[in-house]
């Protein structure tokens, strides 16, 4: 697969189907792949990489690239395709300028987990079916691939690429997952415990804005937190309130639009489980207003721009009780 993706990128560029390709390129380390736009075959030959570390969701880059002259190819893993379609639904991407190559995905790898398994001085990671062969300065190690997946991949909600022009590999299906288990665990705690948990997590926030910059839903032309007119302009979090404020508002702004791609947690340098905030909204929406998956289709109204006359009252929050 890794080779097929790169060949496809070359092919599309060479046969003139597209003028540029959005893909991944090597960063400082082999596991540190970053999104990149390739305009020539040479660039692709040199830098294009698709591997178990190509976790980055490329959909957000289509906003700008779809407005560039000519046509752009983009590679979308299943979860990325939801983000892409959500952006399309919000009229952010000009579909006619994009050529989508869907990629079947077996889950992306988390370097932190490989390190946590006791591998130091990692030089390369090779995939061999269900196994990972980790080459380190101190000899090779073999790990189970399953144990080294990113959190979001371990609880993957869907292997289905919802929008594509061409598909590499087998199309998959939506699947039942345990992705809400952690949210439910937190819900079962006492308010005091929850407060302590989130204080512990959010107090580590350094307001680097990585979560915001990577999030496909956070693609506003100008964020409220950068906007003087909003009255809440706020560059750095100076106190616990502002740490809370930023993350609550961010989660609220993407509620009903967040596809649960998990990029926010993947990029957080402080390892704050930010996806739990988004998942809490998704879980509430599913439970209170019926199951809704952002980006799954182009038609369904987002739950926050919709209503029924017999919706539950906000007091349901009190009635549901603290410990379930």
């Amino acid at each position: 697969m890794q080779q097929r993706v790169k060949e496809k990128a070359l092919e599309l560029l060479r046969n003139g189907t597209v003028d540029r390709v959005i893909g991944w390129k090597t960063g400082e380390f082999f596991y540190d792949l970053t999104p990149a736009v390739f305009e020539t075959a040479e660039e692709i030959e040199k830098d294009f990489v698709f591997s178990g570390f190509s976790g980055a969701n490329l959909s957000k880059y289509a906003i700008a690239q779809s407005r560039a002259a000519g046509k752009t190819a983009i590679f979308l893993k299943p979860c990325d395709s939801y983000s892409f379609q959500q952006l399309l639904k919000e009229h952010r991407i000009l579909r006619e300028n994009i050529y989508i190559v869907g990629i079947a995905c077996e889950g992306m790898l988390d370097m932190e987990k490989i390190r946590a398994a006791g591998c130091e001085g990692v030089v390369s990671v090779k995939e061999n079916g269900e196994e990972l062969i980790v080459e380190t300065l101190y000899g090779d190690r073999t790990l189970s691939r399953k144990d080294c997946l990113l959190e979001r991949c371990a609880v993957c909600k869907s292997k289905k690429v919802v929008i594509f022009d061409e598909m590499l590999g087998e199309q998959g299906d939506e699947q039942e997952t345990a992705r809400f288990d952690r949210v439910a665990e937190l819900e079962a705690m006492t308010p005091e415990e929850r407060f302590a948990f989130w204080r512990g997590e959010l107090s580590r926030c350094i307001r680097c804005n990585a979560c915001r910059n990577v999030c496909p839903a956070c693609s506003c032309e100008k964020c409220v937190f950068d906007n003087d007119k909003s009255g809440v302009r706020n560059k750095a979090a100076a106190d616990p309130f502002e740490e809370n404020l930023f993350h609550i508002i961010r989660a609220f702004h993407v509620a009903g639009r967040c596809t649960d791609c998990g990029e926010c947690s993947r990029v957080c340098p402080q390892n704050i489980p930010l996806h739990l905030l988004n998942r809490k909204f998704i879980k509430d929406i599913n439970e209170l207003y019926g199951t809704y998956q952002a980006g799954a289709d182009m038609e369904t109204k987002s739950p926050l721009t919709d209503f029924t006359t017999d919706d539950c009252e906000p007091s349901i929050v009190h009635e549901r009780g603290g410990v379930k």
Partner: protein
Amino acid sequence: MQRIGVFVCWCGSNIAATVDVEKVSQVLAQEPGVVFSTNYQYMCSQAGQEMIQESIHKYNLTGVVICSCSPRMHEATFRKTCEKAGLNGHMVEIANIREQCSWIHKDKDVGTEKAVVLGRAAIAKVHLNAPLTAGQSPVKKRALVIGGGIAGIQTALDIADAGFDVDIVEKQPTIGGKMTQIDKTFPTLDCAACILTPKMVDAAQNEKIHIYSYAEVESVKGFVGNFNVTIKKKARYVDETKCTGCGLCTEKCPQKKVPNAFNLGLDNRRAIYIPFAQAVPKVATIDADYCTMLKSGKCGVCSKVCTAGAIDYKQKDELIEQEYGAIVVATGFNPIKLDKYDEFAYSQSPDVVTSLEFERLMNAAGPTGGTLLRPSDGTHPHTIVFVQCVGSRCDDGRGKSYCSKICCMYTAKHAMLCREKYPDTDVYVFYIDVRTPGKNFDEFYRRAVEEYGVHYVKGMVGKVVPQDGKLKVQASDLLGDRQLHIDADMVVLAAAIEPDETARPLATKLTASMDTNDFFTEAHPKLRPVESPTAGIFLSGACQGPKDIPETVAQASAAAAKVIGLLCKDSLTCNPCTAQPDELMCNGCSSCEKVCPYGAITYADKEFRGPNRTTLIRRMAQVNPAVCQGCGACTVACPSGAMDLKGFSNKQIMAEVDAICR
């Protein structure tokens, strides 16, 4: 920095008794930006208003805070006061220290402290206020009346009388509506046709009125003063301009077995027809469901006999676009279907009829030529049972929970007419209550009982069983505490009335609101009864609720007066507190559009300067200030905060929050 004047009102002792007004004005004088602060006995009085105006000039005020009664009371007053002194009305904020302070607190210290906080919040807001000017939108001087019954006709005539063009859209081939089917009218017993048909002719002959008969409203765009309506003229296969209404075709058409809808199916008509002799326009219409020429291409008799050459089998539906300043809904009512009321044997015996069918049976132009005969065997009925409240006041899901209002009176009318024309008939009326509020109404009902000897029985009919050519009626007589068994020849059911089935889809097109019974809701149940909450949409007749003819005509004229009031204006002043998107921040994501109840938000592609002298095209929200009512739903739906509400901006509200929590 604003130069703010603070004016604390005593409201006699209403405020001054529990708020130390002197202290409030002193403390607020210390607030940043406040250059003048005072208190006075009655700010809203002539002297108080003059004081505000003088201070505006003297201290060169750019903002005014008035600590007084609720803004719902005097905000408009003080805005006008300031406008007269040259200050924009939206630079005034009211701190509500009466209803929300002095009147609910007893302790003077507490009241004073709270009044200060409320004053601070108002000052904080004024700092961020900007002068707002209400926009103007032009008014198209033409009205549309949807529905050509007596309500629609009356509204159209009144509007036309004032000199404005009016179009009537009527879905039937003729205007006139339900009233054309009615025989006599209560309480005067004059003939309905005699008073209605002259009005129909007036409407047809009025140069200002244009009638689109056999037409429906296809779509409605725009807003008050500027509606853009597409009207669908259904194909009637007869050229209206050529047809003389001679009626020859309707006599020669070989297809004779078409249920006559005008007589409610009590007799038959031809496939080409003119609903009744006084139809307006008096033009034939081909019923495409029955015409053999249209169905199989064989026949063409009407075309052959028509000397005017008006028949056109190839006619197509036609779409007409027209602009209007106001729209009047006059879609009227229908009797409900009685298929769920098995106990009255309506579907088992032709001698059980609805009241509207009874009207046709009594009418000289009806299927029996005005002689009351049983539909089953054409004999004269000797015992007639009337049942009231069939489907009205019904909570069981089969009928309507409301009172249909007109049934008591028309049943009294029917009973009276029966006894008058045929004194040998026994007439029973079963009632739950007899409701006769209205001029000369109760007298009318008493006459039916006292002079005409109609048997009014307090009770209800339990069941009707057709047996041996009779209708066995089992009923209760509650006052006599007995059960009655009557062998009747006819049973007449006073069916509940409901809004026409076209009303609901029309309401959606108009974005006008309806109640759960599909009656249009009025802007205010008491004070604005002929207007819809949607600006520019007016209500006439039974589409708003059950009504008799005098009430319908009264409301029709009232709606016309409102329309005339609107069309007289050259332009409309818009609500200045509207939403406004910041183009630099708008993502064009359509979140705001989805929550806007008025359809005030549209999108357009706009060019922006990108980096390196490139041009970027971005999708951008645009708010039509003439349509926006300023609810603010969009401001919260907007993820980037690009949408803000003038007069209640994010910053203004947060400034108030800050001042209160300080």
